């Protein structure tokens, strides 16, 4: 007994970026089945062990004891190609509505759509990245419905033969939600034209790819991770928080379960619900959706889309490393899952990391710097890794300088801060500030002699058995050397000097 309980939560449009794709919205298909009616045939999804950090999560966990949420996701990916999908008008996201319109975008009598070949390329790339089977011959259809801002009275879409089908996406859940690997099915990827926005005729008609998942997700966090992974796959460089999506779904799961428990299940209808961030609730946006008869039929104005093996292989060969491959690669380097997820899940961080480790052998050290001081700085300053002034080259130089003993770790941290804030080179900063570590034993000995001579009382106490004072002397020496004394040499000579029976 599958009851479709609600359809669609539209999260806010995400900001567009000048990359190959940008996601506009996620329409979440969420349907729920009562496990009471078929408990014997379905095993329940085990709730993640520490999925209890908020009251919301607790509530959902409780609900999931009695119900199983079946969640599928429809994602609309807006292509930031420079031209529109079906005409040669230039397209700039955010430009004024109606600022660029031709007979085709306006749906004028006699105008005909012509598919932008970049749309096909993007669709093939996405299909391959999502492990889909590509249709070497697919077609367009007309989806007909009444909508004031649909100038032609129909939307060009792909109905029964989408360009890609039957794929999957691999996800590693965050450790704070119990971790674990999941594989979510992709039902289809198809091309369509944007239906536009109310009363801005001509603003729409931008290229879109729609990705429909299998109903493989069971919790808000799984859905959010699916969406986040999709964003990584389509190379959207901004990583938005998907917590709103996660919360919306969990709210909806709880809401529907509550209605069930109160024998009000008939109030659960097919509809589009909107997530209200302020009240942390979903509310009805459009009801009775999906009941429309779209009267699909093959689009006679566009020929079939024929892909050759050669074309597909060319695109396959040019695909960038996928996030899943990246995670497995980092895992094999010996990094912990914590490190792997942090580094691989933001394509910019991963790029930074990969560039850093290109020149040095200590991968773990590079990971620690990025996840430690650099991540903390980014968080405090609310900057992305591309916005800080530090380059991967300088980070590897910095790590190298510390390893070779040119500078101390402590000075390294200070330089790092300056590099992130103001830029510059490690070499330049070391020279400019005269930060080269003192490794000459004679020079260190001189400073030690001076410190010992200036502190006769403490020397007497040390020699009287208060050996803890070694730290005091070491600190004084380091201070005197302006932090440049090599700590190993310093301690070695200091101990010798302090213990010398004179």
């Amino acid at each position, binding site marked *: 007994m599958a009851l479709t309980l609600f359809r669609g939560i539209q999260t806010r449009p995400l900001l567009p970026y000048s990359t190959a794709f940008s996601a506009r919205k996620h329409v979440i298909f969420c349907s729920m089945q009562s496990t009471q009616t078929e408990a014997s045939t379905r095993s329940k999804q085990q709730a993640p062990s520490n999925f209890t950090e908020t009251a919301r999560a607790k509530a959902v966990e409780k609900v999931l004891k009695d119900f199983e949420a079946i969640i599928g996701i429809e994602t609309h990916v807006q292509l930031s190609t420079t031209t529109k999908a079906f005409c040669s008008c230039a397209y700039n996201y955010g430009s004024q509505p109606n600022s660029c319109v031709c*007979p*085709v975008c306006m*749906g*004028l*009598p*006699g*105008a*005909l*759509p*012509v*598919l932008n070949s970049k749309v096909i390329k993007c669709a093939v790339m996405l299909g391959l990245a999502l492990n889909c089977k590509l249709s070497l011959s697919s077609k367009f259809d*007309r989806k*007909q419905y*009444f909508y*004031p801002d649909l*100038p*032609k*009275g*129909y939307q060009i879409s792909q109905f029964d033969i989408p360009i890609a089908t039957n794929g999957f996406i691999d996800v590693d859940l965050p450790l704070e939600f119990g971790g674990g690997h999941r594989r979510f099915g992709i039902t289809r990827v198809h091309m369509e034209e944007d239906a536009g926005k109310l009363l801005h*005729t001509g603003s729409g008609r931008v290229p879109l790819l729609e990705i429909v998942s299998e109903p493989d997700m069971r919790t808000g966090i799984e859905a959010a991770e699916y969406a986040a992974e999709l964003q990584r796959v389509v190379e959207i460089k901004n990583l938005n928080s998907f917590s709103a999506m996660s919360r919306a779904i969990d709210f909806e799961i709880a809401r529907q379960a509550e209605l069930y428990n109160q024998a009000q299940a008939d109030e659960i209808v097919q509809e589009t619900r909107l997530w209200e961030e302020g009240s942390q609730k979903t509310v009805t946006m459009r009801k009775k959706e999906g009941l429309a*008869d779209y*009267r*699909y*039929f093959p689009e*006679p*104005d*566009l*020929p079939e889309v024929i892909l050759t093996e050669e074309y597909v292989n060319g695109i396959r060969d040019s695909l960038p490393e996928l996030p899943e491959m990246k995670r497995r690669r980092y895992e094999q380097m010996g990094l912990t899952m914590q490190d792997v997820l942090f580094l691989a899940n933001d394509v910019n961080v991963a790029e930074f990391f990969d560039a850093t480790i290109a020149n040095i052998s200590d991968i773990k050290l590079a990971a620690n710097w990025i996840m430690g001081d650099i991540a903390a700085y980014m968080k405090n300053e609310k900057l992305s890794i591309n916005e800080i002034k530090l380059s991967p080259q300088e980070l590897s130089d910095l790590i190298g300088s510390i390893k070779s003993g040119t500078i101390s770790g402590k000075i390294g941290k200070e330089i790092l801060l300056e590099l992130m804030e103001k830029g510059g080179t490690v070499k330049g900063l070391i020279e400019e500030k005269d930060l080269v570590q003192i490794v000459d034993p004679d020079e260190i000995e001189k400073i030690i002699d001076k410190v010992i001579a200036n502190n006769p009382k403490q020397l007497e106490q040390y020699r009287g058995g208060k050996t803890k004072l070694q730290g005091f002397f070491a600190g004084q020496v380091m201070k005197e050397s302006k932090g440049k004394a090599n700590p190993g040499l310093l301690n070695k000579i200091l101990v010798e000097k302090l213990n010398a029976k004179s």
Partner: protein
Amino acid sequence: MLSSVQNPRVLLLHCRRSKPFHHHHHHHHSKSIHAASLAHPISASIPTSQIQTIQKSILSREKTTRQFAEEFLNRLRLTEPHVKSFLHVSETVLNEADEIDRKIDRNEDIGPLAGVLVAVKDNICTADMPSTAGSKLLENYRPPYDATAVKKLKESGAIIVGKTNLDEFGMGSTTEGSAYHVTANPWNLEYVPGGSSGGSAAAVSARQCVVSLGSDTGGSVRQPASFCGVVGLKPTYGRVSRYGLVAYASSLDVIGCIGTSVADAGILLQSICGHDNLDATSSKREVSDFTSQFISKDYFESQPLKGLRVGVISETLGDGVDQEVVSSIRGAISHLEELGCTVTEVSLPSFSLGLPAYFVLASSESSSNLSRYDGIRYGNQTVSDELSAVYGGSRANGFGPEVKRRILMGTYALSAGYYDAYYKRAQQVRTVVQKSFKAALDVHDILISPAAPSAAYKIGEKKNDPLAMYAGDIMTVNVNMAGLPALVLPCGFVKDGSASLPVGFQMIGSAFDEEKLLKVGHIFEQTLQDMVVAMYHPPWNPGLLFLTSMADPLVTVVFAIVKAA
């Protein structure tokens, strides 16, 4: 391109190169031309190409472009109140003619259609003239752009004389479906000119223009050409860009050419065809020089079509076809045999399935194509507060009954639960029709049928009987379903009471082989005179005289006017 007929020496070369119709014509035969034909200078053979005549005259300054334009405009002024071919007549014709004359004075390139007055069906967009598609919904609509075909015409030097009447959105076979007025058949004003390109055919027939553009979705160029006694050419689907053609049924629509001679139809097609980046369904196939294959009568051998395999579609000469039409077609067939063709009957069992399938497909696509006319962007908006009332009201007031009928039919055919039974099944029929044509054209060079089951009928006769009107499309719709090219040309007359009305026959060719149709048609029309005169008895002679001399049907019109007064 035009030089082939203008210059006997070039023509001679073409004649030598001319291919005999062998089944596989890979190689060229040199044909000897007997001395007698060499001795003949090229004559203004019948029917002559008006386009070539104009081009020759204005280039030699025998006549100015303005003089030609004035002749046509004078005739238009005289006949238009009775024929009513046009929805809009251009006011800049003479200025454009003068501009061409100035170019000639300056020895500038004038283009192959320079000074040629072309009428354009009003469902083809023109930037500087209204484009109503015969509908009230597009009254006063002026597109911001030229259709690709119109753009190409202008680039070739043509003068757009005006926009011609049609059945609303091309849906109809008489022009009675126009929201504005009914066009009359110039051969007899009580009769329909056919449709939906009735205005374009009547305008050419009445010599209101030199040639015209129509559109053909199920026979809308060919049937009116037959009714009006002119040549109608429906190109292969995709041969001419549809960009700027107001869509009726996108998978069937094609812009076609109407003229008084095969040569003119071919020259017109030459200038508008070819791939267009703005129409993804336009073909990238190379376009050959159609007119280079034209041979003047003076250079014919005794059997210029020897070896041409002609298949007569047997289903088109049976029940439901006017006997006089059948006789005319039989006459044309005999003529083709005289010219050397091997004629056999061929059966296309799927032929009768084509008509219902066509109406399902065309209606389905039209229900979608017309959904943009919501009364908000175009046409007369109904005053109402309620949004849906605005839409509903405008559509109810704006569309004529035939359009409403087809939108309803199409919406129904595409609806959930009916799609498989109607649309899908019609698509299957379409595939069968395509295959059966393909098979027939594998063993025949061309196929022959009447252009319509009858000659023109009286205005009002079928107006309230849509099924009878639909049945009239039986000869033509299959060709659109198969996407093939077809040429209709006059081959005789039938008598209806005191009226003598022209009949056309249809030649169907393989996809993208317009060249062959034009070549055969050109030979046919030049030789028809003697054959027909010999074949028919006196009662037909007056009509035959019109046909064979391609005499101006204006005479008929004037005669009718006199009678009416």
